[in-house]
């Protein structure tokens, strides 16, 4: 199969470039919530997850990401057959079997304590059966051409250990019987994960023998750690340090256009919201954000170019929709959002708020680069059209719970678009929230559009790529007209390393040590 050919070619090229084993210390922004790879779909959890676990299908055909399926075929529109690699083994020596796959996809649907569930990726799966130990038959309840893409985000855990394991067992290392390129050495929550190379690994062995993940949420501290030589590589370089790092000859900056979008999610909850009041501070009897004109006014009152230049210092590009230009699902007809203060004021007046209102927006601190700063600049622009805005920066641990419960009037989310195409965001942040269907897991504003949901369904059952892209583009138009979310920026991916290292991006925006090679 095509994928096999690619992976073989890739393996060969990697063996050729492998050099002497070394240690790598990686300074990360995104914290890890757990070593349980099925608990939370958080960037920080994925960074560590990809070191220990493989998914059934490839996340990224460019990078050396291991995946378990040797090949797959579509038997009929709702039946897929996956062949598992013969040599894929768990770190305790037992082979990876079809039962592990079935167990993983059942467990991921409901992991207790999850705040960002993976269940959206398996929502179309009706049944998983083992034809033989190395062959899995997956039946979907609807035709789903994106099944292999969906499954590339869900890590496979072992049935023989996982069956009796809780999230705590993964965190303690007890259940970390893995099948990825690394093994756990130690885990200090909030501080570091130390891992050593899995020498029994069935795939391509990475260059680094020992890898230490250090969690340094503060951007300045991360830069300082790199300059002091405490870490070799840092990700998400602080945009305010970019200039001085570029000028430093001991450091190399690696920056590439990225998929990650920064969005605002206005609340569609009809009940009065404590974070929206009239100018005197009295609660409004209905949520003004329910009115499309109000959302549009807020949308066009933001001078994105200015914020990208002045606040984000060129570390991001202006967004008009959730996918960046040039990707699958980007709609060229949905143009840049024009900055128009007069029209914004007129729209507010038309909606019955000529004097505006008071709004508190929420943004997590230190998780999305410069998001608190961008939010404050947005607050300036909104205040100028009469919507007096206050910004509250909340620690992410508190923020995610409250945002998930739709408590905020205006939530901020940075969405990774990890699959590189448009339906991922549609499924998780734009789809009408439904636990059963696995939709809207991070739809914190509770946006709900029947038209969008219909297009999502159509896109996810369309096997023809061109037709599927046209459907996604229609959905972009629908959401953009509704102002279901307020798109702001696409972050660039910026790493900095000590001289002599090279960081190569993957199409999936991940930040993992396998991307780092010595020059």
């Amino acid at each position, binding site marked *: 199969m095509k994928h096999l050919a690619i992976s073989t070619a890739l393996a060969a090229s990697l063996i050729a470039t492998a050099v002497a084993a070394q240690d790598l210390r990686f300074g990360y922004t995104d914290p890890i919530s757990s070593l349980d790879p099925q608990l939370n779909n958080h960037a920080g959890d994925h960074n560590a997850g990809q070191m220990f676990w493989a998914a059934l299908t490839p996340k990224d055909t460019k990078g050396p990401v291991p995946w378990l399926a040797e090949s797959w075929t579509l038997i009929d529109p709702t039946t897929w057959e996956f062949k598992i690699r013969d040599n894929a083994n768990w770190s305790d020596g037992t082979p990876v079997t079809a039962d592990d796959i079935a167990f993983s996809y059942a467990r991921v649907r409901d992991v207790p304590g999850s705040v960002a569930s993976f269940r959206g990726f398996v929502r179309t799966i009706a049944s998983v059966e083992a034809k033989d130990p190395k062959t899995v038959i997956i039946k979907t309840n609807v035709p789903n051409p994106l099944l292999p893409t969906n499954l590339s985000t869900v890590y496979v855990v072992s049935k023989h250990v996982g069956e009796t394991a809780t999230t705590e067992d993964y965190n303690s290392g007890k259940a970390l019987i893995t099948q990825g390129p690394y093994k756990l050495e130690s885990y200090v929550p909030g501080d570091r994960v130390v891992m050593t190379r899995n020498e029994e690994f069935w795939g391509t062995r990475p260059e680094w023998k020992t890898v230490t993940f250090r969690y340094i949420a503060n951007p300045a501290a991360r830069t300082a750690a790199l300059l002091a030589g405490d870490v070799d590589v840092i990700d998400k370089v602080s945009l305010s340090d970019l200039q001085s790092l570029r000028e430093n000859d001991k450091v190399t900056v690696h920056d590439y256009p990225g998929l990650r979008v920064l969005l605002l999610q206005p609340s569609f909850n009809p009940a009065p919201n404590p974070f929206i009041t009239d100018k005197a501070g009295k609660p409004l009897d209905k949520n003004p954000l329910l009115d499309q004109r109000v959302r549009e006014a807020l949308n066009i009152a933001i001078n994105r170019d200015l*914020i990208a230049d002045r606040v984000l210092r060129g570390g991001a590009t202006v967004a008009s929709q959730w996918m960046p230009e040039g990707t699958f699902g980007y709609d060229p007809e949905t143009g840049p959002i024009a900055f128009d203060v007069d029209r914004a004021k007129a729209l507010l007046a038309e909606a019955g708020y000529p004097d505006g209102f008071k709004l508190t927006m929420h943004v997590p601190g230190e998780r999305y680069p410069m998001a608190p*700063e961008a939010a404050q600049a947005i607050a300036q622009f909104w205040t100028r059209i009469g919507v007096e805005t206050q910004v509250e920066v909340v620690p992410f641990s508190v923020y995610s719970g409250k945002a998930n419960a739709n408590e905020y009037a205006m939530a901020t989310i940075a969405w990774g678009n990890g699959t590189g195409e448009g339906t991922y965001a549609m499924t998780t942040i734009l789809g009408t929230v439904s636990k059963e269907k696995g939709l809207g897991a991070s739809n914190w504003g509770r946006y709900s559009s029947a038209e969008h949901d219909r297009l999502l369904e159509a896109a996810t059952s369309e096997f023809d790529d061109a037709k599927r892209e046209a459907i996604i583009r229609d959905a972009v138009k629908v959401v953009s007209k509704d102002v279901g979310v307020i798109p702001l920026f696409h972050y660039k991916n910026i790493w900095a390393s000590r001289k002599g290292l090279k960081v190569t991006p993957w199409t999936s925006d991940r930040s993992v040590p396998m991307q780092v090679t010595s020059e």
Partner: protein
Amino acid sequence: MSVIAPEAPPQSPLVDKLRAFFRSPLAVLGLVMALGFGLVAVLAPWIAPQNPYDLMQIDVMDARLPPGAENFAGDMVYAMGTDGQGRDLLSAIMYGLRTSLTVGIGSALIAGAVGTLLGLIAAYAGGSVDALLMRLVDLIMALPSILVALLMLAAFGRGVGNVVLVLVLMEWAYYARSARGQALVESQRDYVEAARGLGLGSARILIRHILPNCLPPLIVIGTLQIARAITLEATLSFLGLGVPVTQPSLGLLVSNGFQYMLSGDYWISFFPGLTLLCAIVSINLIADRLREVFDPRALT
């Protein structure tokens, strides 16, 4: 200061203490600085070039300008530069002082009143009331204040009122312990015996006779606690849990500038940090001298 200098004729103890206080040039410097900061804080809305909390008046176009730069419109000069949002730092510092001093003095006064009262009650009532109150004091003093403050602010939400509340809850114990100790000593004195002999009520003896004699050490603690409260508020804001980001206090200003430190925009952290330092030093100088003045053994 000469030992053989003839003593001034006896005067009221208060005047005596005041004289002693002003004999230290450092304490006078502290007092002048503290009064200056207080004045700036009170007058900030009238003397600040800009209202830094009014988003209409700040402009992201002017972000991170160095000290002495003109604004985009060309009608004002940012004497201390601007922060990442285009906020005039001088104005922000003036307003930040308001928050810091309000929190510091407010929490010290409330905690002082509550703590002193509870301490006196403990000393006077004795027995199980005393035991209960003092174990509570032990408990509170055993907890690391910054950790408890973080937890409580995460639970209650942020805001100046909540920060004051948290500080009061953490600090009353210091006053209570000191007030109790002092009151226990005082209640053994003859003048209290005399007052009892006259048949005065306990409340009257406590408030009119014992309390005034317990005050000196409490005043010293109170002054030190103002400085401590300001530091704690700044720490909480620096950690992102104090005041809202659109209404920065000194700690939050330092925190905002911290991320620009490595890129050379030193002024965003430096000036608020310097102000914070001076404010705390000035209060500590006053407190130090007060302690010396009230403690006969320390005064030479």
